């Protein structure tokens, strides 16, 4: 049966998702905190993690935003089979919803023109919100995932076009050095997203996808998944700790996403997600719209 998507409902969802993402931390991240608290051995780090956990409760109790940074709005749209949607109207509706959330809540617009630095107070601008549209088989309906990507973590993003002779060692060394350089600036504990392979732009995109993937999920590629486990252990040996003030909990996890690459290339990118690892989703099916994470 064919599912027709009404752009007006997409606009409402895009608006609701922005505010929802800013207020409610996904359950996998909360469980991530529980795991870090359980094994933290440093007293300062325990106290820092305690404040972070308390903040989640205060945000829920006071119905407030978790973090002041409303981020750069990103909408990831996944379209299944037998969905009829006007793509142009869909993108316009998402943009309108994002703008309305900003004006009506009101949210701080964190988006400016890159040269004039002018803020339109809409959270929108040239190319923003970022909207990715993809298609999936074996998937019912249409899903919109909203990610308000904070700048503290985003400002710590790197790409290195290593060469094949550098091998996997170059990838591992690069990740360790990025975590060291980031220190406390990324609001650790973080999810360290690592993109491996592809072209330069795809590699960075993969790193972002890895950084924003739910905790407890793994790279679909077995070698990529093994690399995740190895890197998570190594990164948490460094002692950067929550907020860069020392401790065991430097990262919730290292996530890897990969793509095939050229015979002459060995690209690696790192993008980080802060401890306020916010995201929200809306799933459109025949029975209506279901909100989740």
């Amino acid at each position: 049966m064919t599912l027709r998507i009404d752009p007006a409902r997409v606009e409402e969802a895009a608006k609701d998702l922005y505010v929802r993402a800013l207020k409610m931390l996904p359950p996998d991240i909360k469980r991530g905190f529980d795991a870090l608290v359980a094994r933290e051995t440093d007293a300062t780090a325990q106290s820092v993690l305690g404040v972070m956990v308390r903040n989640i409760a205060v945000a829920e109790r006071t119905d407030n935003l978790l973090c002041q940074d409303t981020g750069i709005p990103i909408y990831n749209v996944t379209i299944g089979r037998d969905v009829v949607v006007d793509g142009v109207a869909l993108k316009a509706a998402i943009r309108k919803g994002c703008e309305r959330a900003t004006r009506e809540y009101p949210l701080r617009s964190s988006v400016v023109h890159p040269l004039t630095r002018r803020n339109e107070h809409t959270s929108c601008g040239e190319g923003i919100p970022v909207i990715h549209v993809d298609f999936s088989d074996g998937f019912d309906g249409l899903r919109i995932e909203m990610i308000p990507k904070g700048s503290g973590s985003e400002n710590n993003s790197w790409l290195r076009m290593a060469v094949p002779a550098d091998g996997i060692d170059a990838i591992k060394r690069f990740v360790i050095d990025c975590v060291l350089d980031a220190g406390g600036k990324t609001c650790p504990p973080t999810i360290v997203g690592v993109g491996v392979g592809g072209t330069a732009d795809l590699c960075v995109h993969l790193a972002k996808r890895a950084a924003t993937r739910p905790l407890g999920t793994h790279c679909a590629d077995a070698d990529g998944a093994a690399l995740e486990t190895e890197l998570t252990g190594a990164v948490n040996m460094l002692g950067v700790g929550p907020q860069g003030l020392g401790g065991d909990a430097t990262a919730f996890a290292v996530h890897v996403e990969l793509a095939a690459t050229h015979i002459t290339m060995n690209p690696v990118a790192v993008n980080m997600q802060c401890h306020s690892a916010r995201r929200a989703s809306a799933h459109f099916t025949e029975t209506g719209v279901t909100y989740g994470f």
Partner: protein
Amino acid sequence: MHYDLATPVTEAAVRQLRINDTVTLQKRLFGIRDATQIALFDRGRTTRLDLAGHAVIHTAPNVRKVEPCADHPVGYAPVCIGTTTSMRMERFTHPLMKDLGVRIIIGKGGLGPASLTAFAELGGVYLAIIGGTAALETTWIEAIEDVDLDDLNPESLWQFRIRDFGPLLVAMDSHGGSLYDTVDRAARDRRAAALAALHVAR
């Protein structure tokens, strides 16, 4: 050691603070950000607000416009007020202290060597707040008392009335101490061990 300090503070009050002490602030706090300091120190703009002896926090808040009243004297109600990464604003620490008399900088992620020198020379301190915990931080702010340079909104110069703002951790002091340096050095010392665990040569 824990200190409860009402702003403005004296140089002596700041110089007694050492890394790992904790501080709770009372009374008044100013909010500044990248654009605020670019305007003040690169573009020659001035402010009518007096920051001498005061604390500033690296922030750009979420606010709601309301009719000015006793609770919201300049027509802004706080929605969500948090903290941004300090390091981008490293080069402004010296003029903030020298030109405007600021004594306390609150932020996240730490500042660098130029700030540490300024804290030692001029008598200042960096207090670490936990980044990303804005919902909690907002409960420590009673009102937005004043605002200047508001064409830069949300990066205006904000004046907050605060109550029990903290506890905050003294992370950089006026005696050359920096928790960030200590942690960074220790982490870089562990680099070789982390690489060995990954079977990577240095």
